[in-house]
């Protein structure tokens, strides 16, 4: 068991990604759109490929913009199919993301000879490489791990988004009809959230891969939901779970000598199932005991 600089960087980066995903994922879950996160994380592939063709680099702003735009197109597509075509929302999601993902795959294979980009890098990612993927300026100064910087920016933007629009997110998630009647643009909030999810997904791809992004979007909020019925606490618990998942995931992978991202997702799953079991058998009993105590005190 060791705790060195590399371990610190990996755990730090993982935690920041987990918190960004969790904060946004909490609202996706409450909107019953958790799988939209999954859809977007796959649908952005053609955006990434096209952005890569334009910029010629696997990193940078073009990728984020390309993916963000396709993410919004995917959201618009899903909305259109559910609202106007009256298709069930899960069917709309399934159709949209598979089609876009397929276009991405075709683009990649079509251009396979020319570009340094493959499905694996998008789907799986490898957080273990974070410490060695350094950001080196043109002058030759080593600034530190590149992905960690991306994660910091992502985290700052995610926290800013959720705290600035907390009231709007809360209202339009709980009661979109009422929100519309007071003149709040529910579509605007929706696209804002989906834009942030697309951006976060892309920003986290290289580090943790698309599948773990989905796990981090869905599992920590779902676990936190079992423990609290207060939105602010839900977000806090989600963030704490994100850090724990990252920390324990790293050491699980260290012990098993396996994929860190995989171990993080597994830890997330274990947290969830433990919470379900505890909630089933323990929580109602603890809660009624607490209530009785409180009533006796009063």
């Amino acid at each position, binding site marked *: 068991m060791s705790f060195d600089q590399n371990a610190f960087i990996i755990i730090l980066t993982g935690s920041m990604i987990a918190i960004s995903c969790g904060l946004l994922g909490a609202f996706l879950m409450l909107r*019953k759109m958790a799988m939209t996160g999954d859809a977007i994380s796959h649908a952005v592939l053609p955006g990434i490929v096209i952005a890569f063709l334009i910029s010629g680099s696997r990193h940078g702003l073009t990728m984020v913009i390309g993916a963000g735009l396709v993410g919004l197109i995917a959201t618009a597509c899903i909305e259109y199919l559910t609202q106007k075509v009256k298709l069930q929302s899960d069917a709309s999601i399934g159709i949209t993301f598979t089609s876009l993902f397929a276009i991405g795959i075709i683009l990649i294979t079509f251009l396979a000879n020319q570009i340094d980009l493959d499905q694996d890098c998008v789907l799986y990612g490898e957080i273990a490489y974070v410490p060695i993927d350094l950001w080196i300026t043109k002058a030759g100064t080593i600034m530190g791990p590149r992905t960690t910087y991306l994660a910091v920016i992502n985290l700052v933007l995610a926290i800013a988004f959720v705290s600035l629009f907390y009231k709007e997110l809360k209202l339009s998630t709980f009661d979109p009809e*009422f929100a519309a009647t007071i003149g*709040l643009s529910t579509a605007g909030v929706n696209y804002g959230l989906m834009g942030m999810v697309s951006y976060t997904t892309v920003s986290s791809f290289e580090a943790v891969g698309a599948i773990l992004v989905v796990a981090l979007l869905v599992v920590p909020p779902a676990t936190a939901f079992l423990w609290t019925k*207060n939105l602010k606490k839900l977000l806090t618990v989600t963030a704490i779970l994100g850090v724990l998942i990252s920390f324990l995931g790293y050491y699980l992978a260290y012990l098993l000598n396996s994929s860190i991202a995989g171990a993080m997702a597994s830890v997330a799953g274990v947290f969830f199932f433990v919470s379900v079991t505890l909630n089933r058998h323990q929580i109602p009993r603890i809660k009624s005991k607490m209530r009785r105590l409180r009533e006796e005190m009063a």
Partner: protein
Amino acid sequence: MIQHIENPVVEVHDLMVSYGQNPVLWNVDLSLPAGSLVGILGPNGAGKSTLIKAIMGLVEANSGYSKLFDQELNQVRNKVSYVPQRESVDWDFPASALDIVMMGTYHHLGLLKRPGKKEKELAMDCLDKVNMKNFAGRQISELSGGQQQRVFIARALAQQAELYFMDEPFAGVDMSTEKALIELFREMTAEGKTVIVVHHDIYSAGKYFDWLIMLNMHLVASGPTAEVLTEELLTKTYGGKLSTLADLGEIIKKSGFNPLKD
């Protein structure tokens, strides 16, 4: 019997709404006086909720328009409040009763501003008015149906509007609460506010409301309760003759004829 008035607070003109190819409201044309307690009566599927949703801009009208305070809805949103049906939201949402009532203060706050102490006090006052002050901190999932309904009404009160649309506020509410709510609505109308309520029960409607709207896909009646609550109009609203309209809709649908396309 459709009575029109001068200077109405709500004016609906030639409103027609359909879901897909099924018309739900035909040619609704009415005006409502300010300061009255208005009931919307009609059988299931008569378009009662659709009427207020169309006025609130939540469903699109195929034709016609509505005006509130003689203006477009967007100009007067601050003066209008809408209480949706209780089942339209998921009560497992992580929030307390107070959190929900605070939402009524949001549109006065505007973007980016957070509710503060003033908003909290207002919300507590509103909870008090519906007799729910003791439940302010309670999780909304732990409230009974009637209590959830009262939280919704408290949220509407927190909007401090002039005109209230309430979609089935008495659904799942016990008799004593219903009486208390009617009492509250009476106080509001005495202050010059207008309260429009979708209601199910014909028998209590006569006692509760000053003005009645009877609806069954088309407008059967709109006028002062005493003049409108007649057996003839009730049969027209609920009785045999009205099934013809529904039948007509069915025939139109089967024949593939679609008048809405033009």
